[in-house]
């Protein structure tokens, strides 16, 4: 029968697969999270697994890593982008493991789905640096990120003390549900406005994206025409909200964001040019990650479990000078 020929060919392929080489654990496995070899004489391959390069913040994170790694001759960095798909990111981490990278940097799309692959890497002795978003459990070498709860709280206090001291109704544009920063920026904010007369009357998910932010802000403004400000979890959503506000005839509605990227289309410029009332610097941690990698792979040293990066409030007063500073700095 013609189809049995087909099945035979398929069977042959599977057989070939089964006879493939097994080189999972060549070389001496290091202890959990500690590399099997280190030192200034080696060449090291680093895998960077990004959640979604379409977000400008994450593109900047990758760029920061690229720039920092360029200064380290022993490092080669391979980048992968999961485009917001959990399964894809798991697959990409597994591919990195197949390629036997020496260190993994990851900014996971969502915490739980990426916990198992990160643990797999960690248990194999590959150091893992987690950037910006967390995974569950403790199976990683170091977490590098700003304290989102703190940023949220500072934002809340800004609203309480400066923006709406009399209180009022506001809208909230949230990041992708299920990502830790979204939860934390919300929780911190609520702490920050405690005791004031500020009320969040509408909240929608903008998924960190500008176009989604605009759509949701449109809806919020239509349903609550009397809100007095919008608290956006990041700058792109805030920019989208600005367009929506202009369309609704509320062009001067106070809108704040978070990120403060020092790029042409970033939050610093937006505040300087008046599109956002204020923002908070949210460092990408890219340079710090390479720094940490150097300490692990080249200096064979130890690193702390958590590295918290600092933040800063940006208003029109200091926007321009901060932009210049960050672009001339390291």
């Amino acid at each position, binding site marked *: 029968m013609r189809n049995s020929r087909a099945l035979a060919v398929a069977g042959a392929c599977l057989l070939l*697969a089964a006879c*493939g*080489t097994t*080189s999972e654990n060549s*070389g001496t496995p290091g202890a959990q999270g500690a590399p099997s070899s280190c030192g200034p004489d080696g060449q090291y391959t680093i895998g960077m697994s990004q959640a979604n390069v379409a977000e400008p913040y994450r593109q900047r994170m990758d760029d920061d890593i690229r720039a920092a790694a360029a200064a380290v001759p022993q490092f080669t960095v391979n980048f992968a982008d999961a485009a917001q798909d*959990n399964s894809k990111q798991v*697959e990409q981490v597994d591919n990195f493991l*197949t390629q036997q990278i020496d260190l993994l940097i990851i900014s996971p799309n969502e915490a739980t789905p990426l916990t198992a692959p990160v643990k797999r890497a960690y248990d194999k002795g590959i150091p893992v640096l987690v950037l910006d978003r967390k995974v569950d459990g403790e199976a990683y070498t170091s977490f590098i990120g700003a304290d989102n709860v703190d940023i949220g709280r500072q934002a809340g206090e800004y609203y309480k003390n400066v923006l709406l001291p009399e209180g009022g109704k506001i809208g909230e544009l949230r990041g992708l549900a*299920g990502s830790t920063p979204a939860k934390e920026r919300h929780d911190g904010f609520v702490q920050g406005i405690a005791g004031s007369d500020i009320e969040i009357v509408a909240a929608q998910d903008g998924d960190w994206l500008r176009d989604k932010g605009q759509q949701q802000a449109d809806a919020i403004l239509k349903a609550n025409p009397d809100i007095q400000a919008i608290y956006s979890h990041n700058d792109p959503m805030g920019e989208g909200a600005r367009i929506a506000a202009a369309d609704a005839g509320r062009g001067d509605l106070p809108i704040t964001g978070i990120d403060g990227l020092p790029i042409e289309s970033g939050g610093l410029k937006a505040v300087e040019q008046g599109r956002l009332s204020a923002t908070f610097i949210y460092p990408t941690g890219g340079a710090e990650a390479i720094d940490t990698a150097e300490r692990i792979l080249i200096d064979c040293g130890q690193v702390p479990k958590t590295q918290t990066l600092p933040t800063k409030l940006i208003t029109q007063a200091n926007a321009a000078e901060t932009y210049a500073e960050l672009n001339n700095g390291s």
Partner: protein
Amino acid sequence: MTKVAELPDLNRPGNGLLVPLFRFQSLFGLVLVFIAAVVFSPTRRGELVFLDSGNLFNVVRSMSEIGILAVGMTLVVLIGGIDLSVGSVLGLASVGVAVLLTGPGFGLVPAVLLVLAIGLGFGLLQGFAITSFGIQAFIVTLAGMQIARGLARIWSGGQGVSITYGGGPGQAPVVFSLLGERTFNGLVPIPALIFAVVAVLAVVLLRVSAFSRHVYAVGGNEKAARLSGVPVKRVKIIVFGLCGLLAALAGIVHAGQLNFGGPNDGAMYELDAIAAVVIGGTSLMGGRGSVVGTVAGALLVGVLRNILALRNVDANVQLLVIGLVIVLAASLQRMRPASVS
């Protein structure tokens, strides 16, 4: 005796060489891509990374969910339809099984059965809408895509549902975590086994059953099938039901692998499933094609993605390559002489 009417070259016995090429186009393609992957594979300590058995099984594992979806999609495409909702149903099912297992009172078997029933029911409803209201499959399943996504978000409360294992409250039975495991020496992933079982069952079904002849007939010429006594409406509804059932199964596997029920998961998976079906040689017009081809098509896409990733090819270029392969496969389909079926 009447002489057979004039025919173009390819139907004559002398040109038999080309015929097998078309018949097994996806298998040939798979072999070609496999060989190319071996040739282009990076090496590590003297060994071909691609041929590492862990890697090869990763490839199969990564395509298992799409593969299960594609088997269901093959049936739908064979009757000349399409199902755009499978990705969303996958998401709905993954949320469903996560919520039920971590919630009170649901054991493993009832939870799985209920979620499969939801997928089956969803598919049957779509089939019913298509046959009884005469709305095109594209439109009905497009709506289904949105509805399933919405249901997934509502059921999960907008957040992903994490699954932890153990005996305590809010924990799923440890058995379920098997889906993330591998057997036989720690090599063969369970999802791949499930995919293989589904594929084999489908191949067998499509070759021996009376139902399969009905399916092909409906795709080949629906009017003629109806006049020949084929219960066309019933066949269509069942096919869409099966597709929904398989999408739910894929969703359960998905949740087990990620330990997570994500309401946004599975987005755009239907396109990957359709790509596997097309590359496998099944015609979108209906009436021609096979599950064997689809399986080969899915593996082909998996191998391709894997080798491109191992060579660190930019993600956007990867999309381009896969798109070109789809176009190539579709044109081979068109050039195929009518006698090859």
